[in-house]
């Protein structure tokens, strides 16, 4: 278990590394299926969701904005796609945290919703600005479907270990 104050300091670095790692996981999966199914890994989103329960909103918004700009620069070369999506998702996570009771099931749906939004907004922004065109028979069955499946699987496998490592048991149980 990592202490809360430490967690805050390592958050930017951790998320940054996870974003890079996600790209590699995505690449490996696409090449395993001969590029027929593209499943985008979103480990970083999962961690972001867990961290959002203990780190304050303003800090995480800033972090996600900076990371979004870096992501845009490195992977696309056009600033303003992921620099919009990441802060939006962070806002959404805090909105859910405020309005819905947090348990494993709502977290699960939060993941599903945020992954779907992530893909949809990125596609929407890019097609609005003419950076890409997309065939509709590609998007849902070969892209969104596998992506959701992969992220549901990673959620099921990793949610408990990640929670344990990143936040640990509630503080009152520890007697702090």
């Amino acid at each position, binding site marked *: 278990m990592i202490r809360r104050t430490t967690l805050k300091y390592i958050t930017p670095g951790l998320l940054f590394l996870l974003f890079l790692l996600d790209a*590699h996981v995505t690449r490996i999966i696409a090449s395993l299926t001969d590029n027929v199914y593209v499943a985008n890994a979103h480990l970083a989103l999962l961690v972001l969701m867990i961290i959002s329960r203990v780190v304050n909103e303003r800090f995480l918004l800033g972090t996600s904005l900076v990371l979004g700009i870096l992501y845009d*620069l*490195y992977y696309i070369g*056009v600033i*303003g796609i992921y620099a*919009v999506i990441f802060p939006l998702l962070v806002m959404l996570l805090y909105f859910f945290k405020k309005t819905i009771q947090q348990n494993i099931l709502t977290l699960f749906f939060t993941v599903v919703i945020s992954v779907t939004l992530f893909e949809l907004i990125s596609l929407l922004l890019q097609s609005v600005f003419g*950076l*890409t065109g*997309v065939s509709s*028979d590609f998007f849902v069955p070969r892209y969104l479907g596998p992506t959701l499946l992969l992220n549901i699987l990673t959620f099921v496998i990793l949610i408990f270990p990640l929670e344990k490592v990143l936040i640990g048991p509630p503080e009152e149980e520890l007697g702090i």
Partner: protein
Amino acid sequence: MRKFNPNKNIIIILIVVIIVVATVSITAANRAKDSDTNIVQSAVNDTISVVDKVITAPGRWLSGGVQSVSNLINTYDENQKLKSEVDQYDEVKQQTKNQAQEIESLKDELELNQTLTSYEKVTANVITRSPDTWQDMLIVDKGSSDGVEGNMAVMSQKGLIGRVMEVNAHSSKVQLLTSDNKSSNHFPVKISSAKGNSFGVLNKYDVKEQQLIASEITEGQDIKEGDVVQTSGLGGNSPADLAIGTVVKVKPDSNGLNQEVYIKPYAQMYDISVVTIIQRMAGATE
């Protein structure tokens, strides 16, 4: 309850939207126009690419190990096969050498220094692939300090895969032929049929069939399945005679006026670990 002031929120949202639209438009226009990046962008990209390389080092090492084991297993079969081919190889090699010398001497005679087919190569490792599926971009570890420039053709071992999109000091972005970017530069192609060559432009990719589509084909030649497609070198960015693929089918386009040629690329467009960046020698871009 927090006080809710709709006017203020609307104004904030509007400002954010304006900023986003402005940055996206400016940077996208910049990317399309000028492939060299500014210092900040270049420094950021190079730094991230170094971190990325460190992350992938264990994976690279592992896959290298797996590769060498599978190479070892295949060696015997391969050796048998190669032995049967090597007999003819020497003869062909000598022939090619003689022909190359002859071409050289003829070029000297004509005082031709660089023709459309002459080029230089830069070999680069792929660091990562953009996780954004709509962009189809590779990030490679060679940049302007290694002689890479914008719009150069990029090959994998077997054939053409894309072009250089953005150049930083020590890394660059390669856009694959599979991408559907409306502002990207299209490759001029040459289709060698039995009777002669026809020319066209590579401009689309069929995701379902995994085939490239060339259009604006010159009329007159009878293009058949299996004809070889290469770059023509006419556009000014790529040298001539880089292999692209073979013709799968020819069909009229949606207007019925022009023909569209479907091409099965030699190179696969996923899982690429090493690329060759081709620098055209004759009549550089500008």
